[in-house]
């Protein structure tokens, strides 16, 4: 497997988009720490970067890369290699590239400016979000043969998790404001990896004091180590399940 991952990684590095992504992340991270006088504000800025650009770049780049390597996959399939191995190698190659880009671009400034549990949590969440959206890219690219449709689907997935989901949750909150829905809200966050990551990080920042009763319930759940573990398991599932579905589909695909 290592040989194929190496080939894929060297191909991705030759592709300058990942380098540009790393550069933009590092400019954003360093400048947001330099502009704010306390690191907590810098962290909040970076949080938004993580929650918007990282998923977008991960899912779009991975989807386009997968469509562009259709020939490569075809070539590998006529060689004595397992199908599962090809798909896994692509996944590991792309995930490693995205995680590395994030680590170098945003992780290093995080660890330098905020070398505590919050910085570390943010780093971990960013890496997980990268992997999750690469996995979702695998799902969207296997669902349709048409490149335009696949990329459209990828953008829709990002739009849903980054914007629409929050809108729907807010709508629910207002509609059901008179009912005790706080516990339900904790459950609903499990349906969006971005929200899971956001709440995990927000609760570790001081601003969580301003989130009212729901915030207190969240803190009750996510603040404990059990809640933390559960939410990390949920995040991991967000990466594993889409990839697993795509793998099953790939194993049955005609090329």
């Amino acid at each position: 497997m290592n040989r194929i991952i190496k080939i894929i990684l060297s191909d991705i590095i030759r592709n300058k988009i990942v380098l540009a992504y790393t550069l933009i992340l590092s400019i954003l991270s360093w400048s947001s720490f330099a502009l704010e006088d306390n690191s907590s504000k810098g962290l909040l800025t970076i949080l938004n970067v993580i929650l918007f650009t990282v998923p977008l770049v991960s899912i779009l780049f991975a989807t386009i890369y997968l469509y562009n390597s259709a020939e490569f996959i075809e070539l590998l399939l006529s060689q004595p290699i397992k199908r599962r191995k090809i798909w896994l190698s692509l996944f590991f190659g792309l995930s490693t590239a995205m995680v590395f880009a994030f680590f170098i671009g945003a992780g290093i400034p995080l660890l330098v400016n905020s070398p505590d549990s919050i910085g570390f949590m943010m780093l971990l969440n960013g890496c997980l979000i990268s992997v999750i959206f690469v996995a979702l890219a695998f799902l969207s690219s296997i669902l349709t043969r048409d490149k335009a449709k696949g990329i459209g689907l990828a953008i829709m997935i990002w739009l849903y998790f980054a914007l629409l989901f929050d809108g729907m949750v807010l709508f629910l909150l207002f509609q059901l404001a008179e009912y005790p829905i706080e516990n339900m809200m904790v459950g609903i966050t499990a349906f969006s990896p971005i929200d899971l990551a956001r709440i995990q990080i927000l609760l570790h920042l001081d601003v969580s004091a301003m989130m009212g009763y729901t915030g207190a319930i969240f803190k009750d759940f996510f603040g404990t180590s059990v809640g933390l573990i559960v939410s990390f398991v949920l995040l991991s599932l967000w990466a594993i399940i889409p990839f697993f579905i795509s793998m099953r589909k790939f194993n049955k695909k005609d090329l």
Partner: protein
Amino acid sequence: MIEIKELQKKFGKFEVLKNINLSCKKGECIALIGPNGCGKTTLIKSVLGMVLPDSGTIHFNGNSVLGEYLYREKIGYMPQIGRYPDNMTIGQIIEMIKKIRNSSDDLDEDLLHAFELEKMFDKQMRTLSGGTTQKVSAVLAFLFNPDVLILDEPTAGLDPLAAEVLKEKIIKEKEKGKLILITSHLLSELDDLITEIIFMQEGKVHFHQKVEELKTTTGEEKISKAIAKILKNKQNEPNH
């Protein structure tokens, strides 16, 4: 060597392969012919495991190929339209396949020299003409001394000189006792090459015969004429 039994495949509602039964033995050079869209390439891709059949079995050296991959070490495949990663050069592609195969056997680089591809090693795949891409495909198919060669329209797009080089190479490999499967529309080119013919039509095997038998039963010297005769006889038969 390759045994195909009751193979069926549908793409959506379209039945591409209808109950195919075939048996190919070592040392034969088999031509797979038939009109466009009769399922030749699908059949070949099923053998390679790139297309997964709906039902039926394919055995390679006695083992089912379903879910297997190691048997492909013994197959050299030259696709009809070779598609390669655009930004890689010829040299990189060949290097990459060598690395992936990781084979310690002697490499067969005859074609590489014959086509003079070394001069173009640093050319990117997207800048290549169709013919040169075909040459790369041919080199890759023969490179690892496979027991079985599957060539999908090998001479299409090649200039006459290169086509002749490839033909000579195919004859040489045939004499080593390898199984060679060729699809082609140029029947005249196959005359001095093949020992058996499989004729497919609308997803079915029309006939599978030795060339000698075919020539004696039809009384024709050329393969193309013999096949034309058979097809004419079929048409004259009343439809049931």
